[in-house]
């Protein structure tokens, strides 16, 4: 695929982190309205609709009905928290194929209010379930397996992982909507309770209600809109699994997805001015930053240490909204907020304390499912196009 002609014209992150007194559908409505108002479009303009498989109703049907949309293209691709990165890419492909011209991508959820946890319902038809569920795999301990292996192979330390949380907390201190706004230290992370070795409580992301929405539009539509233009110039997706028992926990699917995205964008990792990188856990971010080539493989620990990810003082500004670790992880799926902050940076609309000067190239990377067993990676590369 050559460079796409699709633009992200609208982006909206719901300000709530605890949605008491609101229905789930209402949250979807509010994020859709927010993105449309941001772009200067109306719901009559939407002709493509994207959601995940946790959205209420059969695929997209109930939400398209609830929102009163008239669409000619729908897509409910799901790879967990990375799904929205894939949605942006798929929307651009649908636009290029003439299947739609204004694609609405939505995510909402209220796990904090409803008490619903991140573990999927048990379904014994899932072929791996029988061979794994007896042993108690959870989201946190399967990511713990990756962290234990990374430490063994590359000498990564808990102190280095803690710096990822420290950077997120510095950024979140400037975000009035962030769930955790207090700046924390490496010691705070290491002294927080061990959840599943080697991951402490502060190595884990927040559980929050809320959501977000994006509008991906054709060049013809983008030209008529007044907001700063953000163009998709490359995307990649990949799935990694156990490969019949030939398991490799040292590399994530971001290795392959990143290669595809950078190839399509015809740029190199060194060109990236800002990166949003999925941070369900500190190790999730560390492995992606290496696998995407933003630093050398195995050297992620040294790259993130000593404030390496803090905007304005580190090696690369990452997750300037506070990320999933401190800001928001709506419905246990952090992919959409990654794209939203990248759009803010490219528009020059991030908080002034964290805005990257002259930010014209940004990357957003998502990691969905279980990095320790089977997961899906989605990467998008975006440029400011005025």
């Amino acid at each position, binding site marked *: 695929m050559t460079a796409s002609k699709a633009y992200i014209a609208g982006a909206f992150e719901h300000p709530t982190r605890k949605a008491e007194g609101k229905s789930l559908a209402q949250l979807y409505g509010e994020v859709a309205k927010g993105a449309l108002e941001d772009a200067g479009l109306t719901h009559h303009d939407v002709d493509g609709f994207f959601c995940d498989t946790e959205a209420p109703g059969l695929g997209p049907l109930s939400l398209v009905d609830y929102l009163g949309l008239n669409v000619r293209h729908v897509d409910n691709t799901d790879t967990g928290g990375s799904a929205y990165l894939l949605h942006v890419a798929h929307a651009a492909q649908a636009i290029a194929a003439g299947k739609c011209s204004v694609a609405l991508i939505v995510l909402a959820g209220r796990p904090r209010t409803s008490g619903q946890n991140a573990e999927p319902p048990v379904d*014994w*038809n899932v*072929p*791996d*379930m*029988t*061979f*794994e*569920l*007896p*042993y*108690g*795999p*959870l989201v*946190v*301990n*399967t990511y*713990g*397996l*990756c*962290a*234990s*292996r990374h430490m*063994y192979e590359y000498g990564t330390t808990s102190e280095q992982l803690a710096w990822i949380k420290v950077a997120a907390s510095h950024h979140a201190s400037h975000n009035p909507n962030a769930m955790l706004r207090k700046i924390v230290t490496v010691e705070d992370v290491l002294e927080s*309770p*061990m*959840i*599943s*070795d*080697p*991951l402490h409580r502060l190595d884990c992301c927040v559980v929050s209600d809320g959501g977000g929405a994006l509008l991906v539009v054709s060049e013809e539509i983008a030209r008529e809109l007044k907001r700063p233009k953000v163009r998709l110039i490359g995307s990649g997706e990949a799935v990694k699994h*156990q*490969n*019949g*028992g*030939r*398991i490799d*926990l040292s590399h994530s699917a971001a290795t392959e997805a990143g290669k595809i995205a950078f190839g399509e964008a015809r740029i190199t990792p060194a060109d990236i001015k800002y990166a949003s990188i999925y941070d369900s856990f500190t190790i999730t971010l560390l492995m992606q930053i290496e696998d995407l080539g933003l630093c050398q493989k195995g050297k992620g620990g040294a790259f993130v240490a000593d404030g390496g990810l803090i905007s304005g003082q580190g090696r690369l500004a990452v997750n300037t909204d506070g990320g999933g670790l401190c800001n928001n992880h709506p419905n246990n799926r952090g992919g959409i907020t990654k794209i939203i902050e990248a759009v803010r940076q490219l528009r020059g609309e991030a908080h002034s304390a964290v805005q990257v000067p002259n930010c014209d190239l940004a990357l957003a990377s998502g990691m969905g499912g279980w990095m*320790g*067993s089977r997961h899906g990676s989605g990467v998008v590369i975006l440029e400011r196009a005025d």
Partner: protein
Amino acid sequence: MAQQRVPTTPTTNHENRAFWEAADEQQFMIGHCRACNEPHFYPRALCPFCFSDETELRQASGEGHIYAVSVMRRAPVPYALAYVTLAEGPVMMTNIVNCDFDALAIGQAVEVTFQASEDGTKVPVFQPV
């Protein structure tokens, strides 16, 4: 020895029942493909490497070493989730039992043992040699 977590009893189907019936007899099986002669885990009807349907269960040595391990501390009864590299090659998800959690290390030699799950059905797990 502290209290040990009781494994969840697996619900089986036509494809995987033989594995669990063998486990209940304290025989640890892995998948093997007669067409490409490669072992695989978890066992399945189609070989994930060559896509042949000539797969079968073969008894494994039950020897291996720890590939990765994470002790779930924030559980009612803490337990060690691990991947073990089997002597035959494949890596499988399992628990490490009968051990000091703080002494577990990647590379450590382990051997299969069997633990009763919730309904008594035996599940293959591993313990330090």
